[in-house]
């Protein structure tokens, strides 16, 4: 079964490495992983789709939160949530069958975002199933290229998945946590001896 796990992580070097390494090492199966910034300064958000039974997902959550750079973990699998992924699909089609392809796209509420004499790029922002349905219908035309971002998830209503600590970090700690570990800007003196 697929589970939707959301992790709020410190935006610092190596955090993606730590999370990926954890999944590899413990043999957890990642179906998709999407990372981006949040409204909270210094915090990134990962939506991780994990394949496995309940016990595995329990371990995934606990091992994730054990990472020092992971601030919060929530399982949105059974939550009332908006789940979306973005897919870009380049389909082979010519003037003759373009109309058919666009009709299929509109049934699945996908948009054409690029046209050429022999291809069209469709953009779908949808739940996984709808993207799958769209793809099934496009296969016979020839899918030339496909790119899916993986799911992102957000709870419906006022409940949020956020760190939400008003006090936040002291300025000093914030600077330390989010600026340290990065190569300083500008030329460094050459020092190879």
């Amino acid at each position, binding site marked *: 079964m697929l589970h939707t796990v959301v992790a709020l992580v410190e935006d610092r070097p190596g955090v993606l490495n730590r999370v990926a390494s954890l999944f590899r090492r413990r043999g957890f199966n990642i179906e998709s992983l999407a990372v981006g910034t949040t409204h909270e300064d210094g915090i990134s958000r990962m939506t991780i789709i994990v394949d496995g039974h309940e016990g595995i997902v329990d371990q995934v959550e606990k091992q994730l*939160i054990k990472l020092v750079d992971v601030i919060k973990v929530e399982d949105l699998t059974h939550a009332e949530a908006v789940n979306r992924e973005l897919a870009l699909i380049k389909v082979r089609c010519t003037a003759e069958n373009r109309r058919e392809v666009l009709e299929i796209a509109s049934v699945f509420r996908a948009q054409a975002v690029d046209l050429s004499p022999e291809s069209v790029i469709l953009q779908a922002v949808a739940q996984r199933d709808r993207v799958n349905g769209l793809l099934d219908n496009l296969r016979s035309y020839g899918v030339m290229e496909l790119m899916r971002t993986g799911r992102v998830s957000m709870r419906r209503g006022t409940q949020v998945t956020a760190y939400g600590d008003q006090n936040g970090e002291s300025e000093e700690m914030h600077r*330390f946590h989010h600026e340290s570990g990065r190569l300083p800007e500008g030329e460094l003196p050459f*020092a190879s001896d």
Partner: protein
Amino acid sequence: MTTTQRPPARDEQQARPSAPPPAQGRRLSGADIVLECLTYAGATTVFGYPGGVVLPLYDRLPAHPQVRHILVRHEQGGGHAADAYARATGELGVALATSGPGATNLVTAVQNAMMDSVPVLFLTGNVARNLIGRDGFQEADATGILMPAVKHNYLVMRAQDLAPTFAEAIYLATTGRPGPVHIDIPKDVFLEEAEFHWPERVHVRGYQVPGAASEEEIRAAAERIDAAERPIILAGHGIVISRSSEELQAFAERAGIPVLTTLLGLGGLDQRHALSYGMMGMHGSYHANMAASNADLIIGLGMRMDDRALGRFADLNPAATVIHVDIDPAEHNKNIDTAVPITGDVKEVLPQLTAAVKRASHPEWVRWIDDLARAHADSLAVPEGPELTVQYVVQQIARAHAHDDDAVIVTGVGQHQMWVAQHMSISRPRQLITSGGLGTMGFEVPAALGAQVARPDASVWSICGDGGFQMTFQEIATMVDEQTPVKLAIMNNGYLGMVRQWQELFYKDNYVAVSMSQPDFMKIAEAYGIKGIRVEEPGQVDAAIRDADAHPGPVLLDFRVTADDNVWPMVPAGAALSETVESADEVV
């Protein structure tokens, strides 16, 4: 996942033990900042090995005479020594290595500390910042290589970040479930100047240190404990780490529950205590394994439900209810289905439990275990006879130090390690220093060095495998330099004994790559200029131990023990604890 209301866990701590550091606010080089940090944190013993990129740090060592640098002979040895230093004292150990090969030589020691939750600060130099990622001379991605083997790690790119990094790293290494933390420092960061500023508080928002349990959790546990007819306690390393022996004893006595320990839990409860039933697990005693298999309630305390301790998980004891107290919630339900998982520090949770449970005793259950222990004493007996056995040597070393409250026993990994666990009568926390989770051969010599440096007045005996000894014995040179009077007792069976045992029992006597030719260990002693004693028969053992103890310097003892003895009892690999066997005839 259910969550209950629990007392808030700590996610920050006052980072200043007392007054601010004397150098606070001064402009210093990165190297000086590192040494000021170690000094302020009280971590002033460093097991290290120099190299190009850490030279700026070494250059400043003489200016900080309070920092004691011990030059080891291999970085792995430095890592194990720092690890044993931490195990012997409960305080942070520090190991230092150069970039590239220095850092990669640390890997075994880092993972060893990780598996056994030992607070060690591993410091490595790296190539200068502008060379990082360019495959410069002696560049290795130490941060990446060590990432899965540490509790946390850092690559410090600015001298101004050194002090907060050290404050945070030390906080992480020593709190909660302790563990190794690694700091990687490019060469030019040691040279860069910055204002030394040790932060007032450390605040890590993704890290919490659990303390006490919630009332609900305690109630749920107490109900089951009060209702149990055949309860058993499995005490692990957490009891030792958290200095909770007294709390464990009080709880066991109040609820009348027999106590088994894991390998690393040995010493958590005095073995002479009436409720102490020794070690369980692959080479645990027969009665201990049967007690764990037949209990109706299993209470795991500060242990991680490891396969060497519990055997085949599915068949440990499916009928039993499990209560599991551990500071690391990720250990709950990882290997064993648990009815009452409690996230907390045993030091705080045990008194809560003691106060919540009814005073009880379980005479029938205890008698059942006692009867088993009597009936199966033979498989644990020290063999008598003309031959020199490891069991006998261990027993005699234990007897010679029976009244020595400070003796520290270090081991390697293999048969001799298990015989030490069985026959050394480990009765105090931190008395036994052994590599449990990783099972690292070669731990025995450098760990003995670290333990003796940490406890200069203690009698430190390292029971070495002849195989493991040869992996790291170059640290004898360090012992000579540091004048650490360690006693290195090689159990010379001419074999990788534990592997030989497996080949005998599970590979039909097909002995492959387990018989070893040995150097003349007395000549090794001579070469290093230390005392050597060879022991060939049981009659010579006591005198040899006396001589070694009386000698003020390091001693190498070559015990010529029987070659083909097996460790019993044994839970065959992949078997359940209830399938413990006591002789080769029982192995199918």
